[in-house]
C-alpha cells in the first residue's frame, strides 16, 4: 500500500512540478532553443538575456511592485475581515446569524465572471478605476475563507472563551492571543492562498486600470509576447520571477499548510 501511495504521490508531484521546472529552464533558453526539434528540456547554453530583456522591454519592476502591493494589501484586509466575520459567526449568538451566514456562503455559488460587469460599473461610479483600492476591493469579501475559518473556530470549545471572559479577557485579546495562534495553520494557508489568487488575477485588474503605471504583472506579462512570433524567452523569464516569491512562501510554510489540510480532512 505504501508503495502505491508513494507512486501516486510521485506521479502527481511530477505533474505539478514539471511546468514550474520547464518555465525556469526555458527562461534561460536562447531564441533558437525554442524552435529546436525535438523540443528541448534544458537550455543549450544558459543565458540571462531573457531576464535583461524582460525588464528592458516593459516596466516589469513597476508591474511587479503593483502586484505585490495589491496582493499584500488585499490579503491583509481580506484576512482581517474573514477572521472577524468567522469569529462572530462561531462565538456570538444573535438574531438572523444563520441566515446571514447562509447568505454569505451562498455567494460562493456566484461565478466571478458573472459579476464582472456589475462590479466594473460600481467601481467606475465610485471613481476608483486606476487605484489600488479599485483593484483589491472586489477581493475583500471571501466567503470560502469565512466558511473555512468558521468551521475551524467551531472546533474550539466556547468554554475557552467563556473562561477567558470571566478572567477579564476581551474578545480582541482572546482572538489575537489564543484563537489565531491555535488556528495558525489554517490562517497561514488561507493567507497564502489569498495572496496567490490576487497576485495571479488577470481580467479584473485589466478591466479597472487604464494607465500603464497601474498595471499588474499578469497584464504586463502578456505585453512581452506576440502570438505570431516564437520569442517566448522574456515571457518565461518574467514567469519565473513571478512564481519565485510564491514558491518560496509555499516551501517555507509547507508545515502549517500540511497541518491545516491533514487536520481538516481528519475531521478534527
Amino acid at each position, binding site marked *: 500500500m505504501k508503495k502505491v501511495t508513494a507512486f501516486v504521490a510521485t506521479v502527481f508531484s511530477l505533474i505539478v512540478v514539471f511546468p514550474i521546472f520547464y518555465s525556469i529552464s526555458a527562461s534561460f533558453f536562447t*531564441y*533558437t532553443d525554442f*524552435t529546436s*526539434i*525535438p523540443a528541448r528540456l534544458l537550455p543549450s547554453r544558459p543565458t540571462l538575456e531573457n531576464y535583461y530583456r524582460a525588464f528592458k*522591454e516593459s516596466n516589469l519592476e513597476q508591474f511587479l511592485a503593483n502586484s505585490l*502591493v495589491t496582493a499584500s*494589501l488585499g490579503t*491583509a*484586509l481580506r484576512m*482581517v475581515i474573514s477572521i472577524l466575520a468567522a469569529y462572530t459567526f462561531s462565538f456570538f449568538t444573535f438574531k438572523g446569524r444563520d441566515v446571514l451566514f447562509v447568505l454569505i456562503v451562498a455567494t460562493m455559488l456566484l461565478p466571478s465572471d458573472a459579476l*464582472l*460587469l456589475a462590479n*466594473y*460599473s460600481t467601481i*467606475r*461610479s465610485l471613481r476608483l*478605476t*486606476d*487605484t*489600488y*483600492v*479599485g483593484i*483589491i476591493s472586489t477581493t475583500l469579501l471571501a466567503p470560502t475563507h469565512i466558511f473555512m475559518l468558521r468551521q475551524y473556530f467551531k472546533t474550539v470549545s466556547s468554554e475557552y472563551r467563556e473562561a477567558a471572559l470571566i478572567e477579564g479577557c*476581551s*474578545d*480582541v485579546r482572546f482572538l489575537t492571543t489564543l484563537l489565531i495562534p491555535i488556528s495558525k495553520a489554517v490562517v497561514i494557508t488561507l493567507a497564502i492562498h489569498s495572496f496567490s489568487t490576487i497576485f495571479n488575477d*488577470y*481580467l479584473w485588474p*485589466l*478591466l479597472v486600470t*487604464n*494607465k*500603464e*503605471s*497601474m498595471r499588474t504583472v499578469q*497584464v504586463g506579462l*502578456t*505585453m*512581452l*509576447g*506576440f502570438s*505570431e*512570433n*516564437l*520569442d517566448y524567452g522574456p515571457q518565461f523569464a518574467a514567469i519565473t520571477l513571478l512564481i519565485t516569491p510564491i514558491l518560496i512562501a509555499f516551501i517555507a510554510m509547507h508545515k502549517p499548510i500540511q497541518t491545516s489540510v491533514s487536520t481538516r480532512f481528519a475531521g478534527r
Partner: protein
Amino acid sequence: MKRLIIHVVLVLLATQSLAALGQTETQRDAVTTITWWHSNSGLAGKAAETLVDDFNNTVGKEKNIQVQAVYQGKANDVLTKAKAIWQSSDTSDLPDLVQLDGSAVLDIRDNPNLIAMEDLAKADGYDLSQIMEAARLSITYKQEMIAMPFNSSTILLYYNKTAFDEVGITTPPRTLDDLAEVATKLKKTDDKGKVIRYGFANVPTTYELMVWLGQQNGLSYITDFENGHTGNPTKVLFHENGTMVNFLTKWKALYATGSLENLTSDLNGAFASGRVVMIVASTSNLTTIHSMVGDRFEVGVAPFPMVDEKATGGVNVGGGAIYALNNGSHNESAAWEFVKFATSAKQQYAWHIATGYFPVHRDTYTMPEFQAHLEANPHYGVAIKQLLDSNPKLQGLWVPSAYQIYYAFQSGILKMLTENKSPEQTSKELETEINSYFAEFQRMQQE
C-alpha cells in the same frame, strides 16, 4: 480593538496615497488627447509604440493632437473591456479608437457608440479608394466601411521545398486535384507501412472554408446576406449551390490517397519537423514558420490551392481593424487624423516590415523601398500577388455562434472521412446544423 482599528485606517490611508502616486498625468491646454486601445504585444507592441511616437512628433505636434496608446490585453480582452463600458450607462470612459480583431465585428457593428470610419473619411474629403478594396470590403457592413483595416493578413500554402526536390516536384500544386497527386508522391511509409511523412495536413474550419467555398465559380457566398456583410444571415447557401459537395468530393479524394493527416493543432510544428510537407496558414505566420524551420530545409510558399479550375475567386482578407467610438468628447476628427496617419503608405510600410501584416494602403505597393523589400523577401511577394489577383468581393464570414460553426465544420468533415459518409450527406447535415444556430439567434434577437 483600538489598535486594530488604527491599523485598518492606516492601511486604507496608505492605499489612498499610493493610488494618488499613480495619477501624475498632466494635461496641457488646447492639446487634444486621443486614446487608442490595442492588443499589440511583443514585436507588434513595439511597432505600435513607434507609430504613435512618430505621429505625436510630427502631425500630432503640428495639429495639437497627442495619441495615447493603451495596451488592453489580448484582442478578446480589449473587446471585453469595451463591452463592459458600453453596457454601463456612462460611456465617457470609452477610448476614441479601439483596435479589434475580426471576431468582434458582430458585437460592435450595431453599437450606437460606433462612429463609422467612412463618415470620418468623407468629412475630411479623404478618398477611400487609396485603401485596398479587398481590405476595405473586409470591414464593410451594409455598404459602409465601419472601421479602418489595420492588421491584415491572408492565407497561404507553405511547402517543404527540399522534400519537393527530393521527389522531383518542380511546381507547387495549383488545385486540390494537383494537391492530392503531389501529396501522394510525398507520402513516406516505414517498413511496417506506418506513415512517417504526410503530404498535407488540415481539418478545414471556417477559416479555410471561407476561401475554399467562397472562391468557387469566381465568387460564392456561404450564407445569405453576402456572408453576413449586409445583415444577419438566416441560412447557409453552400448546400443548395453545391459548393460544399464539390469541395468535400475533392477533399475525400485527397484523404483516400492516404497522404492527408487529420491534424487540428500545431500544424506549424508538424511542418517544421518535416513530418508534414504542406500546410495552409496565415501570411502572418511567415516569420514564425521561417524561424521554426531554421536551416532544417528550404521553405516555399505558393498561392492557396484552388478547389478546381473554375474556383478563381482567390482568397479573402482577415485580421483586425481600428474602430472610432463616440465617448462624448467630440474628438472624432482628431482621431481620424491618427487613423489616416497610421494607414498612410509610409506608415503601412513600416508596420509591414515590423509585423508581417500586409499594407492596406495602395501606394505602399509602388514605393521603391517596398519593391526592394519584396525582391529580398519573395515570399511576401507571393502573398501579395495572390491577394491582388483575388476577387475583392470574396469576404469573410460574419455569423453568430461563430465558435460552434467553426467546430461544426471541423467535426462534420472529420466524420465524413472516418465514418465514410457521402459528401452530399455531410453537406446536408452541416446545412441543418448551422441553420439551426441561425434560427436560434433570430429567436433570441426577437425576444
